[in-house]
């Protein structure tokens, strides 16, 4: 419909997306954007159009870019099971409780699972440590930092 070669259209799209992503990434002001594209020698009407395009889409582009950063696996869900080992091939008449955990993690859209097993006393210790970690948020040091970040 545009009567130009495929390559030209492709280069045009690539150029436009590069312009928009770089501008959004650096969060440049209107004036800087206008000065930058002025160098390209387009008509004023086109410059205005590009500026409007940039301003309208900048927030959305930034939110998409923020999701591209490498992320550590994040928590999705936890399944658990409590078992008691009563006997094994080598020893009968046992009572050995064990907690089996399956930790479901999300990393960049992939789901992985880690299976862990622990005895009740280690589990209690784990809970204690995690509660201590949560408690850290309430200390004065953390409160001061959170207040200054807002």
């Amino acid at each position: 419909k545009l009567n130009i070669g495929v390559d030209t259209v492709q280069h045009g799209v690539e150029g436009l997306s590069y312009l928009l992503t770089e501008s959004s990434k650096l969060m440049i002001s209107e004036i800087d954007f206008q000065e930058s594209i002025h160098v390209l020698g387009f008509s004023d009407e086109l410059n205005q159009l590009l500026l409007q395009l940039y301003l309208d889409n900048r927030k959305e582009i930034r939110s998409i870019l923020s999701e591209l950063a490498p992320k550590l696996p994040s928590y999705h869900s936890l399944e658990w099971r409590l078992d008691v080992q009563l006997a094994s091939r080598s020893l009968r008449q046992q009572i050995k409780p064990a907690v089996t955990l399956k930790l479901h993690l999300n990393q960049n859209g992939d789901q992985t699972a880690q299976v862990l097993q622990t005895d009740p006393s280690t589990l209690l210790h784990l809970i204690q440590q995690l509660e201590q970690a949560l408690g850290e948020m309430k200390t004065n040091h953390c409160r001061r930092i959170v207040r200054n970040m807002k």
Partner: protein
Amino acid sequence: RFRFCGDLDCPDWVLAEISTLAKISSVKLKLICAQVLRDLLGEAIEYEKILKLTSDAKLESGDVKATIAVLSFILSSAAKHNVDSESLSSELQQLGLPKEHASGLCRSYEEKQSSLQDRLKACSLRLSRLGSVCWRVDYTLSSSELREVNEPLVHLTFNVQNGEHGRPAAVPMTLSADKFRVLLAELKQAQTLMNTLL
């Protein structure tokens, strides 16, 4: 403290959605419960039916989803903690659900309580399961090492499925007659122990 929440406080979002449930008529609520129970039991949920049932109450799409979520929570949590339907009814009324709504909900719950609990038991964490066992007994006549072997040999293949959605994996092995006898004896001992617990 509520028994259906596992003797813990009722979550805030559940409390908030109880008022949404009260907007629906108690008859329609019982029908929506039936649909939610179908979903919890692993059958397909008919979302269009739920939309039709909630259209009278003029709920927004967010409210419809919230209704399904809160009913799912109440029904599965009550089954998880083995709460009987009268206790569930009185606890829901304490939270502000009108009496007819609570009794309708609890009647649906009572009908399906044991199937729900069976389903939850089946969904519990399992690491791997044995699908099937195939076997074959061969008789080795001779080999490159020894001209006359004349020994029986058992081929066993265990088909194991890893986790809920894992693909079944085959674990093949061969055993001599003596090794196989030892395996069988040990497994029989384990089976006797399991039978004493049933």
